[in-house]
């Protein structure tokens, strides 16, 4: 059995190295975002997506060439989970919402005549320019609102130093998630926004647990030096942090492997988020408190604290 109780790891010893490491990742994320950008799905870019299933394997290149003769602009065809499942993406047509509707019919007719075997249309999505514009906007607002709400909540429950540290860690996680999607060019669609919001919640959850302990130890060990105190707090909560991360990852990995193609991107984002969120609670959020001059005199406001 693994013994993760009573560890005495000096997490803050290498804080400069981990800060540099985090900064490099953040810079890399920004770089990837500005160089290659996100590979927006139709939710945010508009356009048409059709998932088909056929009895026989289809030669993708031939089908792609055929669909690209329809003068619908760029048509992408890719395998989706298996060789008999294909995903066809047609870019947004110029000329407003009404025009998008014709694309499905044109592609369907073309597929029916091009492919000899029966085609099963598993999924059809058409998003017009109006809706895609709104979705991207509300997605961005939701993430900002979530980060802001966390800032306020932590401020309210702790002190501004904690709130600042937690939000820096949070923004770090969000940037790294957007970065990994920029680098891998995995499709960035509406469920990914949901995943990022969950990451925000999860990462905060982890940070709060560590911070809670820091606050408690600030009361308990009033003369302890802050670095030792932060190390103690991280170590005391370490086994919980690991156990919860492992159970969450177990569930998510199962979803990633067995949950089907449709939510693979969503699950990937969350797995990434759990790893990054756990890392940032220990190596970003907690060490930051060292520099934020946290208040030591917690007992001045409430002489007898309820926890004792």
């Amino acid at each position, binding site marked *: *059995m693994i013994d993760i*109780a*009573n560890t005495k790891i000096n997490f803050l010893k290498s804080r400069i190295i981990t800060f540099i490491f985090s900064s490099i990742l953040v810079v890399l994320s920004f770089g990837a975002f500005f160089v290659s950008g996100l590979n927006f799905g139709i939710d945010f870019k508009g356009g048409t997506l059709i*998932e088909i299933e056929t009895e026989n394997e289809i030669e993708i290149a031939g089908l792609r060439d055929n669909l690209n003769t329809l003068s619908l602009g760029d048509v992408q065809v890719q395998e989706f989970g298996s060789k008999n499942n294909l995903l066809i993406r047609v870019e947004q047509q110029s000329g407003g919402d009404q025009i*998008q*509707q014709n694309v*499905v*019919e044109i592609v369907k007719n073309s597929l029916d005549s091009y492919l000899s075997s029966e085609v*099963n*249309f*598993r*999924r*059809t*999505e*058409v*998003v*017009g320019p*109006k*809706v895609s514009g709104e979705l991207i906007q*509300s997605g961005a607002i*939701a993430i900002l*609102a*979530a980060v802001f*709400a*966390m800032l306020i*909540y932590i401020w309210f429950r702790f002190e501004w130093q904690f709130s600042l540290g937690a939000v820096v860690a949070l923004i770090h996680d969000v940037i790294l998630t957007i970065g990994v999607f920029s680098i891998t060019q995995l499709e960035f669609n*509406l*469920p990914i*926004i*949901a995943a990022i*919001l*969950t990451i*925000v*919640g*999860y990462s*905060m*959850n982890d940070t*709060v*647990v560590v911070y*809670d302990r820091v606050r408690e130890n600030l009361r308990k060990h009033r003369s302890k030096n802050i670095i030792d105190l932060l190390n103690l707090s991280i170590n*005391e909560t370490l*086994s*919980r942090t690991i*156990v*919860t991360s*492992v*159970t*969450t990852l*177990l*569930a*998510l990995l*199962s*979803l990633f492997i*067995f*949950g*089907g193609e*449709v*939510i693979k991107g*969503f699950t990937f984002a*969350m797995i990434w988020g759990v790893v990054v969120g756990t890392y940032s609670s220990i190596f970003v959020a907690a060490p930051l408190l060292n520099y934020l001059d946290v208040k030591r005199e917690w007992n001045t406001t409430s002489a007898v604290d309820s926890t004792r």
Partner: protein
Amino acid sequence: MIYFSNTKILSILLVIFIALMFAVPNFFSKDQLNSFPSFIPKQQVNLGLDLQGGSHLLLEVDTVEIIKERLENLNSDVRRVLKKNNIQYSNFKNTEDNLKFVVEEFPAEIQKEILEISVSNSQNILQMGDQTNLVITRDENQVFISFTDEFIKLAVSNAVAQSLEIVRRRIDELGTREPSIQRQGSSRIIIQLPGIDDPDRIKALLGQTAKLTFQLVDTSTNYDPLNPKKAPVGSEILPSDTDNSFKYIVKKRVMVGGENLVDAQPGFDPQTNEPIVSFRFDRLGASKFGRVTQQNVGKPFAIILDDTVISAPVIREAILGGSGQISGGFDSEEANDLAILLRAGALPAPLIILEERSVGPDLGADSIEAGQYAAIIGFVAVIIFMMFIYRYFGFLADIALIINLFMVLGILSLFQATLTLPGIAGIILTIGMAVDANVLIFERVKEEIRSGSKMINAVENGYKRALSTILDANITTLIAAVILFFMASGPVRGFSITLAIGIFTSVFTAFTFTRLLISIYAKSLKPSLVGMKIND
């Protein structure tokens, strides 16, 4: 903290029992459920379109068109007033949101008369009390007439309400299974059609405003039907439905409109065997139609649907019976759809399809299967891991986890919340995160024991200390879920629902059920055995 009164124990068990009762129906088929006694709940989880297959359409009422049309109606009324009062005007134009013209003189009483158009003439323009709906603004000689903001709001709101009703009628006529048609925001309509994965026909039905009018063909001028130059004042050029290059010049005045129809049915012409739509007018429509046909025997009239001429028969004799038929080279399905459109009535403005998401039944079934599979495997993995780490306490947490899952399912069924594929992901995430509350408590208890507390005290203090941490940690995730709920729609919203329910149930079970189990365990220990098996 660890002593429970009997009432408390009973109420904890009761809450869990009720949740289980509501979860149970999901494990049986509909037929099996019907054979159960009536006190057992029968509601199953409501599956989203992405799981049961179906089509989601987001439509928008073209509000610009509503105002444009009303301005066109206003156009002739304003001209009439100006002519009647011998006001010289020039450059009379309709734009998207106003009428404009140039005058030398524009006396106040004429302005007043124009403002009153909207009060007196309720046929063209919606009435709003005895106040005018118009605003006149001037820029030197240029005059602008537009509608008031309140009027525009009301007109749009009425048009959307009316559209909603007509969309509902059209879809009901097709006999779709349990469609859901809802208004969203100020000018949008969301349609959910379970079981329909190819909504082409519905889209075609909704894509037409289906405005039917009967207008006389303008026979006053000779013109080339392939290339008419300009229509005389009071007439317009309209294309033929059957042959696009062929044009008609018809009088703008409407003899009778679709609003006077009481019935329309598809059928076949007994002589030619061609598909037709036969219709019947109401009393007002019949008398109008009778009068006009009486006066125009021998002349052609046009049957116009959405600004195209379906046919233009010659009036052989006065048609007084108030019924007739339309034939125009359509097949029987088209005749059927036209009859549906005419029965349901015309839309006040065109509908634009902004978004369509359709999922076939196979993909939905595959998603459910994959989701169940992933849930079971994730569940087993977490259970084994917890027992490995915490032994007996892990086993207690595992029981709590099972109860948790049943409660999530029970609450989903009870409130008939929609379960979507991301929703299943939310449940699986809950499996991973639900043990967190228990982990926080166990770790605390371990620490207490390590520092020398007795088992009972350790449990007591462990719970006490972990409480605020658990609340803080879960509230952050809950905030994220709530924001997601308000921001998202459709499948993603389902994720926020299961995530939020999972947070509630896991906190609830940790503080009631697991605590109860642990207190029973702690009390059962002999004093000599006190001290949990921990690995220090």
